[in-house]
């Protein structure tokens, strides 16, 4: 992130310098030395951000990859175990289960919110007005709340005598009430819905912004071709917000795979291991079972998985546009 932010600054410097030297001398050695000076200037601009990135992101990451090759309790001496930790990550049923749950969450964090977001954004775009502005704010609200607070709220909503069950009782559905987060059959669904609730607002807003940019004349042309609202939505709106869909998918998939707060607060991975995700397991491996090497291996697998998925999405998005 830091690197890409500073790159434009260095690029801007170049045309300005070129204009300055054109007046002086076009001679080749001078130009070469000027080029070198420009490079130094560029480095000076990139430098601070680069050092910060290296120190606080690249180096710790490389260090954790290095630790993942050891068996280490976090304090004492460590033993080199090579790829053993990785073998365990990919074969231990609990660790594999956590990765599977993380991937399962993508449905609730990405697929549902983008689907819902497309419909909601299209409705907002079609019916602008004060009410839709308020609704948009309301929808976006979960995004600005700390996820720990979100977890605490939903734990209360889902509890045995909490609001969800009270509403069900009112509608005569007392038979299905239960402790939603403590039931093996519903816990995963329940935490998934919290994810949907959190990310739908972000997706809606992103897509809504994208829809504002779509050329109105495309809709007029579609109307002339006798396209109804549904076909306009399918053939004009969705292709028009492809870039936004790619961004929303990327951000929410990362949120799904790296989820921790909501699950840690609501179920802690239970009941049994029904809702365990890599984030919670990494935390437990480091802080309760002192298996720092194994935790780093799981973290590395998780980050590689995220990078691969994000790269694939980026590729698909580029190809189509």
């Amino acid at each position, binding site marked *: 992130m830091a690197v890409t932010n500073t790159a434009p600054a260095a690029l801007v410097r170049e045309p300005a310098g070129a204009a300055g030297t054109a007046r002086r001398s076009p001679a080749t050695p001078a130009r070469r030395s000027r080029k070198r000076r420009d490079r130094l200037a560029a480095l000076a601009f990139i430098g601070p951000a680069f050092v910060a990135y290296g*120190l606080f992101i690249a*180096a710790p990451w490389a*260090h954790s990859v290095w630790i993942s090759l050891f068996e280490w309790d976090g*304090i*004492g001496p460590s033993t080199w175990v090579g790829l053993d930790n990785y073998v365990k990550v990919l074969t231990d049923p609990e660790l594999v289960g956590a990765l599977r749950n993380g991937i399962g969450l993508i449905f609730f964090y990405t697929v549902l919110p983008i689907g819902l977001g497309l419909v909601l954004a299209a409705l907002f775009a079609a019916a602008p007005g004060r009410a839709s502005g308020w609704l948009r704010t309301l929808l976006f609200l979960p995004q600005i709340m700390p996820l720990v607070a979100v977890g605490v709220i939903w734990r209360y909503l889902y509890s045995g005598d909490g609001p969800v069950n009270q509403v069900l009782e009112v509608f005569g559905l007392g038979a299905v009430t239960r402790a939603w987060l*403590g039931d093996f059959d519903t816990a995963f669904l329940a935490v998934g819905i919290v994810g949907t609730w959190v990310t739908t607002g972000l997706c809606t807003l992103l897509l809504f912004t994208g829809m504002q940019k779509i050329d109105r004349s495309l809709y007029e042309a579609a109307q002339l071709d006798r396209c109804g609202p549904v076909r306009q939505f399918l053939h004009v709106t969705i292709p028009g917000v492809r870039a936004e869909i790619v961004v929303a998918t990327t951000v929410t998939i990362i949120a799904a795979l790296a989820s921790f707060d909501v699950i840690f607060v609501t179920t802690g991975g239970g009941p*049994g291991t029904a809702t365990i995700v890599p984030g919670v397991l990494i935390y437990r491996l480091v802080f309760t*079972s002192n298996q720092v090497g194994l935790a780093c291996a799981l973290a590395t697998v998780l980050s590689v998985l995220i990078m691969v998925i994000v790269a694939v999405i980026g590729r698909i998005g580029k190809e189509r546009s």
Partner: protein
Amino acid sequence: MQRRILHPALAFAAAALVLTGCAPGGTAGSAPASAEKPSTDLGSEEITLSLISTPESGASTKATIAAFEKEYPNVTVEYQQTNYDDYNKSVNLELNSDKAPDIALLNSVNNTVKNGLVLDLDPYAGLYDWTDKYPENQLNQWRVGENGTTLGDGPLYAAPAGFSEVGLYYNKRIAAELGITAPTTFAEFEEQLATAAAAGVLPLQLGNAEGHASFLVQSIGQSTDGAGAYADWAFGKSGSTFDTEGNRKGAEALADWAAKGWIPSDANGVNLQGAVDAFVSGKGLFLVDGNWDASKIAEGLGADAGFVPFPGDNVTAIGTSVAYAISSSTEHPNAAAAFLNFLGSPEASANQFEQGFMPLDPTAATPEEGTLQADLVSAWSKISEADGLVGFNNNASPTMNDTLTASSQELLAGRATPDEFLAAVQADWDETHGGN
């Protein structure tokens, strides 16, 4: 652009790696030993000790420090506290740092003793007669074998400062309505659960979102098997098994009671605090919980609150002590040991009882007649007398708490049989303490 940035980034990361050293971690037990010879004489030189603790465990310690400083005017103790979760994450790093505290609260020995971060206290146990002062089972939890993981035998690494006990709370009003008195045998207890269920009263309040059903299994288990034999497993003694007569009885009872609806159907979704709140509001005849919730229960139920040791063939309680250890890099081990010894004094005992812990010296506890506190103290003296204190099974391995939580949730939901429950728990134990 991309590529040019990537290369230096990799070089940079590699350089950082080299700088951070090759293999992670240091060498064990490298702390320099103090020049002091173990002695009870602290001399007259000014000494400052630093002590780290948590708010819950440290409340009585803070009060005790004042009394200690009065007794030893040349010693000052600086008190510092961190909340429980953060404390457990950081205590080993602090003890391993250059500015290690002299005295540290120890919530579990694993990793701390193995890496030689705290002193062997046996010389001081001899000097101060701790083995005579404390019942054996109360000190054994802080004895660690040579392998660093087996407890109960070997050098002592911490000294107790107030105890916890888990037992059976009951609602006296509901009991009177049902015409029952506190049970003393397991058969009687089960009959009373049935009586309550027949009368439409919830027999046993329970919250298992954080795995507190394991208290029930352990209470039934150790009161059947006896404290001494039962503790071997929690201590990690080689060849022990979780599949004992008592644990089997406990696991089967739990599955049976869940199936019969004698415990709340949503137990897996309610935590301990939720269960205590429900019990206090009159939902449930019995609740198995520790003395740490006593003040909340006494406040909520008033004169209706009662407490007895868990009913069974043997008088036992699950419990542990607040315990302090001495850093192996301290410069004043003698002064630190004098403080640890002072934690067993009548003044310290009185402070501990005031903060809700059971004191070493039961005469320091002077509760009002007929209160819940009186029940707790009476249960505590019976347990001390029977030497019936057993550490928490949850501490049997670093991951045991998570395993007990997950497996007991499966047991309650009918997703695992008692056999599978016992096997899953034993499998976790085997990973730390080696199979048979």
